[in-house]
């Protein structure tokens, strides 16, 4: 079942002549882990903003085409209505936290929805536990690390129990280890809670292995789309400016040099190591 359907979307920011999204059509199925990548300025963030109606409600501008979330047209709904369906997590953790304590921040969206205090308490504790920061609930935002701040941002979106969670480069302010931990949390949500994940990320090295739907964008268009195993061995990917995982590159080299590896493209070093062991034991 499709949870998001975008049809022939063209969007131009106000006061800009060139469209930032230039004829995008895509379908996201329920429970998918979608990875969106592409060079800087190709329109990834703009696309994310259309999923909960920030574009066109907050940003105005000119929009053509259709965005359907769970079968409903986003342009006819307010952003605060969409917030219950689609949760957005942004790049800079600092600018998404407004309250003076972690748990108050997680409760922010629920307070806005006018939820009762008992129900809110349950949801907040549930969300904090899910991302593993229950112990930090009474800390102030500046007392926790960047990685923890980003977890707070994720928890605050989760507390609203959306069907879809969209994360726009959630780890670009973090070191690789913290980033990896965040990705693990996101993957767990996808696997255990069945939440549809849309993740924008440059570092395919860390994330390609989680995804079952990869979208490569360039200049406001989608240029490649499909299973990451199929896409990443494509010759064009390298030319667009996408960071292909090192394991994938090494696999390609080995194949070219005639080493008898499994033809399936690996996405991370674990997968490649397994293939190498298999080849060596023959």
């Amino acid at each position, binding site marked *: 079942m499709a949870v998001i359907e975008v049809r022939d979307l063209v969007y131009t920011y106000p006061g800009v002549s060139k469209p930032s999204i230039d004829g995008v059509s895509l379908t996201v199925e329920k429970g998918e882990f979608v990875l969106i990548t592409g060079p800087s300025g190709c329109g990834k963030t703009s696309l994310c*903003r259309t999923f*909960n109606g*920030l574009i066109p*409600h*907050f940003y105005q501008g000119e929009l053509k085409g259709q965005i359907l979330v769970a079968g409903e047209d986003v342009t006819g709904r307010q*952003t*605060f*209505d969409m*917030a*219950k369906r689609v*949760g*957005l997590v*942004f790049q*800079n953790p*600092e*600018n*998404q*936290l*407004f*309250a*003076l*304590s972690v*748990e*108050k921040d997680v*409760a*922010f*969206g*629920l*307070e*806005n*929805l*006018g*939820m*009762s*205090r008992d129900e*809110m*308490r349950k949801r*907040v504790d549930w969300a904090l536990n899910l991302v593993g920061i229950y112990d930090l609930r*009474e800390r*102030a*935002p*500046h007392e926790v690390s960047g990685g923890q701040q980003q977890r707070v*941002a994720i928890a*605050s*979106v989760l507390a*609203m129990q959306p069907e879809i969670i969209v994360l726009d480069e959630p780890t670009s302010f973090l070191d690789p280890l913290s980033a990896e931990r965040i990705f693990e949390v996101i993957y767990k949500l996808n696997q255990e809670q069945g939440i549809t994940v849309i993740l924008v990320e440059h570092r395919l090295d860390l994330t390609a292995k989680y995804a079952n739907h990869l979208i490569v964008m360039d200049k406001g268009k989608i240029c490649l789309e499909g299973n990451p195993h199929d896409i990443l061995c494509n010759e064009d990917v390298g030319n667009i400016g996408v960071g292909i995982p090192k394991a994938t590159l090494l696999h390609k080299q080995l194949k070219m040099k005639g080493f008898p590896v499994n033809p399936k493209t690996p996405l991370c070093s674990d997968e490649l190591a397994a293939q190498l062991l298999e080849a060596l034991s023959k």
Partner: protein
Amino acid sequence: MSVFDGLKFRKISSPIHNLDPRIKFIYVIAIFICAILFPQMLPLIILFIIQLPFVFIAKVQKQWIRSLRGAAFLAAFIFIINVLTTFFYNNYTLTFTNVESALAMTTRFIVLVESFSLFFLTTSPDHLGLAFEQSHMPYEFAFAFTTAVRFVPVMAEEAQTIMDAQKARGLELEKGNILKRIRNYIPILIPLIVSAIRRSMELAEAMESRAWGATKKRTNLYLLKLHKADYILISLTILLLIITIYTKLYVQIPQISELLTSLTLFAT
């Protein structure tokens, strides 16, 4: 960085910190009223002394003394002005009573500083924001307040970073006359303002994405509830007001100078 550390709020717990901020505020106002009602030295000294236990229970002596020290200059100023005006007004004579009433003015000011600093030293900003939210003020006020508290240290840090960056590029802040020095700050202010605007856009976007404005009847994770200590404080406050009004109406308050003279007379 130590200058900016002072801007960061800390959570401390003590019986005084845990009091309901609304009740504490009523107490501060009551002290304010009492201090205004008495022009004599003696009751003002008593008002000063009865607040001391709170300072010690809250364990904020150090910061509290610092705030009093900060007010010392203004207090001295009030004293001197008072003494001088009475001096010139009474044809260049000065009595003990005159000095004492000038001292009383100064003490009144100190009592006000004492109670206000006690309030702000023992009330955490999130508690205060909560009090705003739950006293039927528009939520936007409370939100503006907590967001300001939240982002002041962040922006202060940013200002420091920009300052360092511009200095590294050869900007000399402490050079030239006053006008030149003010102009030196422009390369710091502009990036700071630009970044503040960008930050506010991102904040607005994040707020929208978390259902800001979904309903007029916003709820709150926390509920301010009155505890035993709050009832004790409100009783003490009412008692204080009653005593004040009674004393004001029926008791002749002696001047300390008179007391002292009669005491010396008695001794001889």
